[in-house]
């Protein structure tokens, strides 16, 4: 391929790894709560099921569904990131991730300052593998793919009765 640089920005090794070998794949049965997210424009689907204990801890989470490499790998990475977090910490991680998705391609300076904002705004939240999805902002149409599982996560948390926004 002549120059796959731009594509490599999007399809980082970590992303393809999560796509090929998704973590926490499956569905939890009751008493887990379940939320289904669709991207109506393209057919991506993510199903999030999770268990939140009395201390507001997400003790277990699984994801299933079908869709493109970005939506499914983001779902896998999301599940790893929030498993073991409290509901409010998971909401914070979601906010941090969404902030990362809103960075525009023509502001690399903002990119760096946002990075420090993210780290300081969410201490103890390691974006870790999620950093690999940073490249998605250069492909705005795919941002919805990356966000799908996070929005579905929020729905699942909401339906578990935790709304400490």
């Amino acid at each position, binding site marked *: 391929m002549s120059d*796959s640089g731009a594509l490599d920005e999007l399809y980082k090794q970590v992303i393809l790894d999560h796509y090929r070998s998704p973590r926490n794949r499956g569905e939890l049965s009751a008493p887990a709560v379940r939320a289904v997210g669709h991207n109506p424009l393209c057919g991506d689907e993510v199903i999030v099921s999770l268990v939140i204990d009395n201390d507001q801890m997400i003790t277990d989470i699984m994801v299933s569904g079908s869709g493109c490499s970005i939506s499914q790998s983001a779902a896998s990475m999301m599940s790893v990131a929030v498993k073991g977090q409290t509901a409010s910490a998971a909401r914070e991680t979601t906010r941090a991730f969404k902030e990362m998705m809103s960075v525009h391609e023509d502001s690399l300076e903002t990119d760096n300052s946002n990075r420090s904002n993210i780290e300081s705004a969410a201490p103890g939240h390691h974006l870790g593998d999620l950093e690999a999805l940073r490249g998605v902002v250069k492909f705005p149409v795919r941002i919805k793919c990356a966000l799908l599982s996070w929005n579905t996560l929020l729905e699942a948390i909401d339906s578990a009765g935790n709304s400490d926004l």
Partner: protein
Amino acid sequence: MSSHTAKQIAAQQATFRQLVDVATIREDFPILHQRAGGDRLIYLDSGASSQKPTQVIEAMDSYYRTTHSNVHRGVYSIAATATELYEQSRRKIARFFNAKQEETVFTKNATEAINLVAYSWGRSNLGPGDVIVLTPMEHHANLVPWMIVAEQTGATIRHLDLTPEGQLRTDNLQAKLQGAKLFAFCGASNVLGTINPVKQLVARARSQGITTLVDMAQWAPHMPMDFADLGADFMAVTGHKMLGPTGIGVLLGRQELLDSMPPFLGGGDMIADVQLTNFTPTSLPVKFEAGTPPIAEAIGLGAAIDYLQDIGMDPVREHERTLTAYALQGLQSRFGDTITIHGPLDADKRGGTVSFSLQDIHPHDVSQVLDHHNVCVRAGHHCAKPLMRILGETATARASFHIYNDTDDVDALCNALDETVKYFGRQK
């Protein structure tokens, strides 16, 4: 690839160049001159919307620059000219489709045309227990309005069956149409490419006293279309898929039917008289055109019709049939078992719409890598979710052709798909 196959392909390419001079046609489409980093745009999404020749762009531009005015209203000269240009477009379109002017109603698009029939004809002709017959290959535009009207009127919906090849089953047609009041179907599928036997299906329905509506959105841009001859009660067409601008479509409807129908939208222009508490609608076709119409767009569509007329719809069809045959052969020979092509594999039975799935690579990702090579294809459910479920897919990729595409474009598609397979294979 065997030399025999290579010879066949070379022969096809030679025949192809005689049909329609694509290189010259491309000169008329400014967007196709675009050089994105040295490569030209390979636009294979005309099924979603077609590109526009300068003749269409200039017709609209010139209208706005020299003679824009509201139509049907003014006495002054530019108003008269605007009205004349607008009605001239209508005449052109009516002639192009062999319909009367009274039968040629401007709408926003094909979706609105179908909604017009659903609300205006449907609500006053359908009641509890009446049956609307549809097909599973329909675009949402020819499904949803009927669901809405069915719920409002108490009518029920029945569907024809599809064959494994993606055509409509006709062996049980009599039973399926039994007792129905309306039969609505597409002339050509925007996913499968299937060309349906419109004239025969309409004739069968009419013989059973059933009103027919045919969604010709994917037919009109690509094949000759004779409203009078095909015999349907209603036909829906959209301008932007046939080299015209967005925001303009056409409903063709038999005059007696349209005369019997109540107005769709109410407002200015569609009235003969308005009192404080009642109104009288005006005559056809303006009875169904409330408010200021998309004047520039109608003029643009007239220019698009001129453009297509110059080429001739038979050469247009033959060009796309040959190109589609080339594409089907190319995709199958290069990708074999790793590609699933939906719809009929015989180019005589389908239009230039090719939906496909590459093994293990999601259509989004296919579309993304193709974009990197300036090849534009659509990925998604194509506004045909029921059909997607039947095909067992949540999404497919789709390449669709028009008059400005040629075998080089198909070669570029196949090469880019090759690169896609390599790219994702490499990442393993």
